[in-house]
């Protein structure tokens, strides 16, 4: 994995790259299959039949069975997670702060023992054989974890030593990783001189020294500016394309959408939905039509909803209140939107904003859980613009 040889071509992982890319293609075709399927399932975990079929051919990277974790103060951080992640997959946990993402990931990387249930990672049980799990995974914690008194090179070398990378391979591995995360030119500077994004990239590199089959990334881009985040995304996609299974947690809806083959929406320690981003989006039931009212009081919004119902344009579609007005999820939002505007004006409303967009994962969150992903920003709708607003933190 992860390296450029002197000729400038990417070195493929030592394992069977062809078989992997085939698996990946297979998964991609399954994925498009799912999207047309538009499965709806009342809040329980959705596992498409196609995935189940292929799980005999492609090996399983993580198997979690009814995992629970209760802290000694009684906090139930994880309440019964079932999960199966295939090798080569890019899988995500999407949820707000305090949903249990970090606790779940810590049980997968053996930092916490599940209080109930079982977790198998790369074929090893996290409780019975934690050391085998640790050698077979890379882990990047939510807080950037680098030794600031050491240089970038020394940090990576320390990780190489820690994981027992053979001495003969270390020098080239370190150079490859420094190149991968674009830190070759500052390799011999102490990490305390680095920006937040550079430290994160260094952290990524140290998680990859032993070419792990599976990498855990806990909110890897939280707190980074969009440019630094986009660069990290490229690195993650690259290591995934080279065959590494990636397990990522994020509060950034767009991040999950951009990177993940499949994702689970996690809330209050439970998985409320698991599917491909597209399939999840299709659960919303069409495009989103947002209407901003000049005077979005509760009363006005209720009246507006009445007016929408009376117009007969969106029968059977969901109508939600937003901060600014109302939002309608409908298969024919684009077609009938202007008619609705007209009807609202007839009914005496002053419409100051109007937006039709494809559903984002925030819409998905709203549709699945009845809540937005973040409490701080109720009804925050994701614009289709690639820059993730920082407000989601």
């Amino acid at each position, binding site marked *: 994995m992860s390296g450029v040889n002197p000729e400038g071509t990417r070195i493929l*992982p*030592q*394992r*069977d790259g062809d078989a992997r890319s085939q698996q990946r293609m297979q998964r991609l075709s399954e994925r498009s299959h799912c999207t047309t399927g538009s499965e709806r399932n009342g809040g329980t975990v959705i596992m498409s039949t196609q995935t189940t079929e292929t*799980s*005999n051919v492609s*090996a*399983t990277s993580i198997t979690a069975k009814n995992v629970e*974790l*209760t*802290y*000694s103060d009684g906090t139930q951080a994880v309440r019964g997670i079932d999960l199966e992640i295939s*090798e080569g997959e890019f899988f995500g946990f999407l949820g707000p702060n305090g949903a249990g993402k970090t606790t779940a990931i810590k049980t997968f*990387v*053996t*930092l*916490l*023992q599940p*209080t109930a249930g079982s977790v*198998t990672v*790369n*074929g090893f049980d996290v409780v019975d054989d*934690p*050391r*085998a799990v*640790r*050698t*077979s995974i890379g*882990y990047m*914690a939510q*807080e*950037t*974890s*680098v*030794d*600031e*008194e*050491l240089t970038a090179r*020394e940090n990576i070398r*320390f*990780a190489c*030593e*820690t*994981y*027992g*990378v053979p001495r003969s391979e270390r020098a080239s591995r370190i150079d490859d990783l420094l190149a991968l995360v674009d830190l070759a030119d500052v390799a011999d500077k*102490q990490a305390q001189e680095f920006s937040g994004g550079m430290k994160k990239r260094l952290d990524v590199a*140290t998680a990859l*020294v*032993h*070419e*792990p*089959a599976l990498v855990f990334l806990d909110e890897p881009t939280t707190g980074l500016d969009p440019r630094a985040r986009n660069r990290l995304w490229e690195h993650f996609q690259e290591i995934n394309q080279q065959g590494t299974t990636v397990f990522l947690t994020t509060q950034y809806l767009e991040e999950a959408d951009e990177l993940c083959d499949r994702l689970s929406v996690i809330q209050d320690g439970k998985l409320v939905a698991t599917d491909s981003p597209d399939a999840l989006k299709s659960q919303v039931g069409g495009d989103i039509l947002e209407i901003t009212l000049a005077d979005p009081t509760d009363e006005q919004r209720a009246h507006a909803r009445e007016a929408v119902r009376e117009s007969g344009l969106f029968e059977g579609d969901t109508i939600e209140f937003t901060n600014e007005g109302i939002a309608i999820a409908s298969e024919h939002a684009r077609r009938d939107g202007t008619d609705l505007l007209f009807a609202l004006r007839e009914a005496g409303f002053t419409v100051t904003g109007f937006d039709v967009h494809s559903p984002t994962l925030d819409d998905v969150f709203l549709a699945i859980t009845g809540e937005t992903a973040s409490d701080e920003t109720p009804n925050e709708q994701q614009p289709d613009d690639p820059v993730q607003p920082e407000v989601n933190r």
Partner: protein
Amino acid sequence: MSTTETERAVEQRATGNSFSVDVWITLKRWLRKTRRNPFVIFGALITPILLLVLFSQLFGQITGDALRGVMGTDVSYVTYLTPAVVILMAMEAAGNSGIGLVDDMENGMFEKVLASPTHRGAIFLGKALSDMVLIIVQTVMTLGLGYVVLWLDSGGSVGTYIQTRLLGVLGIIAIVIVFSLAFTAFSNIAALVTQDSESTTVLVNLLPYPLVFMSNAFLPISVLPEWMQAVATVNPVTYGVGAARALLFGQDVLTVLNVTAFSGIWNTIVPAVVVLGVLDLVLVGIAVALLRRVSSSQAS
């Protein structure tokens, strides 16, 4: 599990290390960090010089009678003072141990290492060894500086400075290690209980000076106020300094315990090592229990 043989082989390419290699890797990282820390270098060199010069100039003129009373003969105050500075430096260095640990926790390295295949015991043994290396280097340097100051002061020969010669130096190093273990454990306990680098820093910096002043470090206990004499009797610094001083002077110097069961300096060294050893066992035991708790994967 459906993982095939070849893939399993790939996953196991990085196999982690043996326990001793893990200790070595940990030790190397901490020594490198210590070397990078300008305060450690500054403190290790400048502090003993300052203490030796200032205290010997300040007290050297007035302590003659008191020293003659305790030691039986005329002795140089510089020589009397050097073991105290050695012990004080060891306490400062031991105090940094906990600060290093809590820094590691705050910047995520502690958890990062826990998530790696590094053996749990090696994480702490490697760190403790790096603390001991620093303390040994400091001890040797301080002993050397003590001699330089003595030579500048009175031109005394090495033989009069360290009566027990090379064996005495090794003995002093051993005493300092036994003494420092307790304070290393104490600073790590402070770090693990507060889990905060500022609080740890305050705690470990608060302790050394009162303990050193209320002991036999700078003045013979007989000239201390009575209440300080009481403190000095139960003060571990008294035993650490006493044992190191016994080796330097080649005679029994411990006045707080009147042991006569052995001969000569052993009447100081044996009781001192017993007292310090018991303290080590207690404090190291507590520190290890706390470290076990933070590094276990039990949800807490």
